[in-house]
Structure formats: structure tokens, C-alpha cells
């Protein structure tokens, strides 16, 4: 998506413009509403919420719900809070993002600069793998993780995310390297540079932007995943999303809405921060996954 604002030739009158601004602002409020609700209610005592003040700013400000969501809320059998699950997510996300991005870069390099017969079909098969409904692989994957001894571990989850993530990372690097001048590669080859030298010295130094796109995309997707976490993790390896769902759905005791909201923000925080810092790259990744070119 081009970030530059291109001027449209369309001209609009004053009344129309006011209406347009009004609609745009209303939609802005619509998108911000749930975030506002989560934020204000995560710093209120429970009585303020149950008393019908969901939309109000807090009368009594408290960070108690945050502390409770983080370190003492009942999740599953233990009152551990979301903290251990946050670390589970980190342990799953970091290796999966690194490995899938490296593989994607190498695949993209081979598929554009060392082309062979049927490489496009191969790429198509890789790409289709990103779009399958993952229900179709749940049963054999659960078995496979058991066989290789990774069932119920964050390593197992990381492996799963690498496998189903390389299609997208390959797509990013392939599209990026496709427009990289092949003559440079040929010239380096004539000078005697090998496969890895060319990659390391010529392509990699200019791959910064697309690497950021790939890392952010993978980070967001893997962090936000629920299906694989719910299917393959045991109580000690569940990621943040699964723990949050357990927290919110638990039927025992009083529903502590403020703790739920604080937990939801904690689960959303990492991806939200990445979006605020590098949203441009996230959107680029999003667009590359839909409208190519």
C-alpha cells in the first residue's frame, strides 16, 4: 500500500465534506470503543462496573485488577495469574519467528534467483498451505508431536508455527527479491561468489524492510494464535491467548470483569505495541498477503 497521499481529482462541497468528516469520526469512535471499555474498566473496582458504570471513567482508580490478572488470578487449577503463560508465549514466539523468517528468506532467494522447473508450482503449494483450515491437520499433528516427543511443550508449538508460517514468509521475500536486479547476482557469480556469499553480501544487506515485515507479521500471527495453543499445549505450556480464554470462561466464583479486561489488555499489549511502533510494516505484510504487487 502506498503511504503517500495521492490527491484524488474528485471535488466535494462543504456540506458533503462535513458529513464525510462526521462519518469518519463516528467510525473512529466505533473502532476505539472496545479499547476504551477495556482500559477504563481495567482500573476500576468491580462494584463500579456491576453498578452500571461501564462507560464512565473510574471514580476510584486502582491497579489491583492488573496485578491480579498478572500474578494471582485463578487460571486452570492454580492461582498463578497470566505471568507464566506470558512467558510460554514468548518461548513459543521467539524461536518460531526467527526460524520461519530465515527459512522464508532463503526460500525466497532460491525461488527468484536460482529458478528451476516447476518452481512456481512449488511456491503455489507452499502458499496454499497458509490458507488451509487448520482443522484438517489437527489430528495428525497431535499424533506427530507425541511421536517426536514434543507434545505439550512450547517447542512443539514453535515447530507448528514454523511449519504453517513459512508460506507467508516465503511469499514476502519472494516478492521482494523478484524485483532485485538479477544482473548483480550474475556479475557476482562471474566473479566467483558462491550461493551463500551472494545471499550474505548482496541480498541480505538490502533485505531490512522485508525482514521487518516478515518478523512483525509472524510475531503478530503467532502471538495471537489460539487454535494450535488450545489443541497441542498442556497446562504448563499454554500460550497467553488460551490462558486468557480460560480466565474469562472460568465459571467458578464471582466474574471479575475488571480482571478480565486487564488480562485482555495484557494479552493484546505486545502486538499492540508492535503495531504502534511499526504499524506501517504490519500493514505492508497484511497487504502482501492479499493483493500482490
Amino acid at each position, binding site marked *: *500500500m502506498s503511504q503517500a*497521499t495521492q490527491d*484524488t481529482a*474528485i471535488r466535494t462541497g462543504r456540506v458533503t*465534506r462535513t458529513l*464525510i*468528516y462526521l462519518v*469518519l469520526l463516528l*467510525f*473512529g469512535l466505533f*473502532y*476505539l470503543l*472496545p*479499547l476504551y*471499555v477495556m482500559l477504563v474498566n481495567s482500573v476500576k473496582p468491580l462494584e463500579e462496573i*456491576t*453498578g*452500571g458504570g*461501564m*462507560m464512565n471513567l473510574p471514580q476510584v482508580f486502582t491497579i489491583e485488577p492488573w496485578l491480579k490478572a498478572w500474578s494471582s488470578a485463578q487460571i486452570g487449577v492454580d492461582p498463578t495469574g497470566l505471568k507464566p503463560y506470558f512467558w510460554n508465549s514468548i518461548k513459543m514466539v521467539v524461536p518460531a519467528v526467527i526460524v520461519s523468517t530465515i527459512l522464508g528468506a*532463503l526460500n525466497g532467494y532460491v*525461488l527468484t534467483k536460482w529458478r*528451476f522447473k516447476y518452481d*512456481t508450482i512449488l*511456491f*503455489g503449494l507452499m502458499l496454499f*498451505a497458509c490458507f*488451509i483450515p487448520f*482443522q484438517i*491437520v*489437527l489430528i*495428525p*499433528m497431535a*499424533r*506427530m508431536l507425541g511421536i517426536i516427543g514434543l507434545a505439550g511443550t512450547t517447542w512443539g508449538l514453535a515447530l507448528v508455527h514454523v*511449519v504453517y508460517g*513459512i508460506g507467508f514468509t516465503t511469499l514476502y521475500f519472494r516478492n521482494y527479491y*523478484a524485483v532485485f536486479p538479477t544482473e548483480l547476482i550474475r556479475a557476482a557469480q562471474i566473479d566467483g561468489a558462491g*550461493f551463500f556469499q551472494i545471499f550474505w553480501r548482496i541480498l541480505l544487506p538490502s533485505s531490512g524492510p522485508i525482514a521487518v515485515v516478515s518478523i512483525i507479521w509472524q510475531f*503478530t500471527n503467532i502471538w*495471537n494464535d*489460539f*487454535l494450535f495453543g*488450545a489443541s497441542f499445549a498442556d497446562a504448563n505450556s499454554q500460550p497467553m*491467548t488460551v490462558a*486468557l*480464554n480460560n480466565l*474469562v470462561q472460568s465459571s467458578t466464583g464471582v466474574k471479575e470483569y475488571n480482571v478480565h479486561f486487564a488480562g*485482555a*489488555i495484557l*494479552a*493484546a499489549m505486545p502486538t*499492540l505495541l508492535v*503495531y504502534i511502533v511499526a*504499524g506501517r510494516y*504490519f500493514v505492508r505484510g*497484511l*497487504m502482501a498477503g*492479499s*493483493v500482490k504487487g
Partner: protein
Amino acid sequence: MAVSADADFKTRLQNWIPKLVLSPSIAMMTVFVYGFILFSVYLSFTDSRILPTFGWVGWENYDKLWRLSHWETSLINMGIFASLYIVICTCIGLGLAIFLDQKIRGEGLLRPIYLYPMALSFIVTGTAWKWFLDPGIGLENVMQTWGWESFEFDWIKDRNFAIYTVVLAAVWQTSGFVMAMFLAGLRGIDNEILRAAQMDGASNWNLYRRIIIPQLRPAFLSAFVILSHLAIKTFDLVIALTGGGPGRATELPATFMYSYTFTRNQMGIGAASATIMLMTIAAIMIPYLYAELREKR
């Protein structure tokens, strides 16, 4: 001699390295994607219950599946959900993109606000909307405390309306993304044609209807493909928002598959439903990917 043999080995190695580098990904894909798909499809023809077993039962699971009212419910829900979700997202996305394209001051601020829900987990979205729509503490309660005593909004607890709350939350999450797709399309339109049409006295309405929107066809296609694929895969949102309930009012094929496979111990039927989901997505994605990759050559 030794030198040339060595050089020969080196060139041959150079020829093999690219394929060698690609091979881990190819191996993973073959086993974990296509191998697993075959395995699941095979399981859908077996008597598997708690664990995979290999007694062949032919089409029995599919027969049973299509006679289950639970499956019928989830398909009807999918029909309602997918059509509303796709249509509403497309309308909002296109509308916002057109509005944002009018040299709007503050576009740089609004665009990220429209898009940030895409960075959130569906579980977070589900949690936020679940309590916001809850009649006990959410919107209904707020309106009543504000003085609108007769205000009622309990769709999330109502069997006949709960599916629309799933639509609402899903639209909230992805319509900004659709906006970005259309905006990219709008920014690619040649202004010269528009100016020429303006000279001929075309109104804005006609410019959009006759010239601009027809040119957005690729964006419409992408939006449709991406949205329908997201709709069929919708799982987390339902789990977090309604848990499939009240009753079965918001069950979708993805939640059906999950509960039949992992909690009801009907793995054969679960696999059959997963196979049908895969076929549906394949019918949409394969022609699209084929066309996209062909253009590139």
C-alpha cells in the same frame, strides 16, 4: 587432474545448494501439510473415535454428518455469518476508503485507528465484546442507567440473534483491513480519466459508479477471497464471544469439528467435517492463487 576434479565437484555442489536449501521447507510441507491432509481425509473414512483407528467404513461418517442437526445448524450459521460478514465488511471498507480518499485532514491518524483491531487476537476481541454486549453490565445496563429505561439489547443471550453479535465483532476486527485494500486500489486510479470525465460534466456519483468502482474489481476480488477464507476459519472469536451458545446458536463448522474430535470422541465425523471445510476453502483459494501466480510470469 586433482584440481579439475575438485573444481568439477564444486560446480556440481553449487548446482545442488539451492535445492538443498529449499529441501527442509519442502520436506516439512510434504509431511505436515499435504501428508497430514491425506491422513485426515483417510481418517474421515475410518471408524476412529477417541484415537485414530484404521477400520474402513466408507462414506458412513459423511452420511452421519449430513444427518446431524448440529452440523446443519453450524452450516446455516456459517451461511448467515459469512454472507453478512462479507457484505458488511465490503460496504464499510469501501465507504471508509472512498471517504478517506477525499483529502481528509487527519487521515494519518484515522487510518491506524481503523486498522489496529487487526493486530489483536480474536480472543481479546471476543472478551471485549462479550462483556460490552452483556445485558447485565454492558450496553443495555449503561443505557438504562443513563435514563433510557426501556432500552433492551440482549442479542448475545438470545438464540435467534446471537449469531449477529459474532458478525458485529468480526466486522469490527476486519473492516479496517478491507478499507486499506480498497484505499490502495483507489490510490492507484489514474486521475486523468477522472478529469476528462469531469470536463464532460459527470457528477461525483457517476464518476464513482461508472469509472472508479468498476476499476476496483481486483480489490473486490481480493476482499472477497480473504474475507470468505477468514469466515470459514472463524473459530477463536466464537469460542471467546459466545462459546458456541446460547445452546448451539453460534456453532460454526470450525467449532463443530473441534468439539466432535476432541470432546465428543467422534474423530471420524470430525475429520469428515474438516475435509468439507478444506474443500470449500480450496474451491475459493486455488483458482485465486492460480490466477495470481500466473500473472506474475
